[in-house]
């Protein structure tokens, strides 16, 4: 991880190229994180990739319910030369959950982005094949959201198989 000063320097570089992009920086328990606006995902991550963070280690979503904006997408970037990790976070609302895709920067972002779409409903604009990946294609809802109930689905047994829609016919 870059240290606290290094993180501020990187944030400063981002501010130079895109003045309103950086929302916050956080250096906590060995983790360096920059929060950016959803619109600036492509330019900022493209810039960091040029800067040496050439490997997308992980891309995952999370839900900050009940805080707003609720949905978060985190890009764990890795510089393999200096073994340096930095996390880029962006947060979007449930009403307008769109973030630009990074599949053209890393082909490996394909499956992770589909997973975030599947589990949280974040739409990655420009993704070539944005479908559900883990849940069935006719599934409704995004199960990893915090307000999605666990055990909300009825389980089929012999006593209720007649009342389960789509099961017996």
């Amino acid at each position, binding site marked *: 991880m870059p240290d606290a000063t290094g993180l501020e320097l990187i944030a400063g570089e981002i501010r130079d190229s895109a003045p309103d992009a950086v929302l916050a920086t956080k250096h*906590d328990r060995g*983790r360096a994180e920059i929060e950016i606006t959803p619109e600036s995902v492509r330019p900022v991550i493209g810039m960091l990739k040029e800067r040496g963070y050439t490997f997308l*280690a*992980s891309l995952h979503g*999370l839900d900050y319910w009940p805080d707003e904006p609720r949905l978060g997408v985190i890009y764990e970037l890795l510089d393999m030369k200096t073994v340096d990790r930095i*996390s880029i976070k962006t947060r979007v609302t449930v009403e307008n959950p769109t973030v630009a895709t990074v599949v053209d920067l890393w082909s*490996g972002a394909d*499956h992770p982005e589909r997973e975030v779409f599947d*589990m949280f409903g974040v739409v990655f604009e420009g993704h070539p094949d944005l479908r559900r990946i883990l849940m069935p294609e006719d599934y409704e809802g995004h199960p990893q959201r915090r307000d999605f109930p666990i055990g909300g689905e009825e389980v089929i047994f012999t006593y209720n198989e007649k009342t389960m829609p789509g099961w017996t016919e």
Partner: protein
Amino acid sequence: MASEVSDYRKQEESITLERLDHDPATGISSDLLTLNIGPHHPATHGVLRLIVTLEGEIVRDIKPVIGYVHTGIEKTAEQKAYWKVIPVIERMDYLSYYFNAMAYCGSVETLTGVEVPKRAQYLRVIHMELNRIMSHMVWLGTSALDLGAMSMFWYCFRERETILDLFEMSSGQRMHTRYFQVGGVMEDIPLGFEKKLRQFLKTMPSRADKFADLLENNEIVLQRLRGTCPLSEERLLDLGVTGPLLRAAGNPWDLRKTAPYSSYEDFDFKIPVGTVGDNYDRYRVRHAELYESVKIIEQALDGLPEGPYITEDRKYALPPRHELATSMEALIHHFKLVTEGFRVAEGEAYYPIESPRGELGCFIRSDGSSKPARVHMRDPSFVNLQATAEMCTDTYIADLIATLAMLDPVLGGIDR
């Protein structure tokens, strides 16, 4: 009646076996066949479904379909206290359960700041490297089976059994042992463990030699592995591929060396790398890792420090059983831990380790309560699977099976 039969005969006789849309210029039929492989097929190593577009015997396109063993473990983890998450997390990638537990515990330890005693770190290394050998044994046995070498399966599973017996000795379970705890390990290794482990370490390298003798002088295995489905280092990095697959292409990236965790910096071992990145290199890299893992375990066993095997911090680790009868404090700690669990201050952590398949990272967001608000596993199989299409396009379908075996995907980890 008679005319109907003769009509049928006429129709039958009119059928020729020639291709319908035969291209006279090239002599190749442009027919594309879409073939469904799996989800229930032994060569897919689990419940992976591949929709393969074939032109004759040549693969033109692959679409992997996953999700058949999606069990929602990440969602389940949000409903459990931190230390009760470990058993469900272990069941993700069911061949590398110690690694799942390590990534998770490491992430929680980063968030809480719990110090892991040196002895616990060494015990973790011993079990993780045993697990790596065990995982590679399953891979080698089943991969050889895919290539037609049937006897390998039994030889490999014999070694695997020995390792599972060792796991049973140290934790009481053969799989999904729940041996790693936040702050250390569950119990110290029992009497007799070291002797049995040393015996295993003595035989393992010679067994690995024998596996190589069996496979590497086999014309069929060599023809199916050598030069098939290579992928360059740049493409692999672009696809996010890590682990033995990346090392086979010549990049010595291994988190045990580059960003040591759990005292890996104390041990002297080498990172095997390949040169071309074909299936043969993938096989050789994993095979060479067996020797390196044995070396690490030997050093860890020789240098096993004295001291506690779990943190003394009673806020995170259960007090020893005998203290409960005499100490009120211990009783309170025990009660608090078992009922509510410990609370973790708000924060986020991503803890990557080197699993047998690549970078296994555990992301945790804590919201200040005793249950994690988000647990996410960056599973290497899930990311590595994306490389299948690129590796296997424009090769024979037989090479697809060999590549899938060398990719070593574990569907429990992919679907989580």
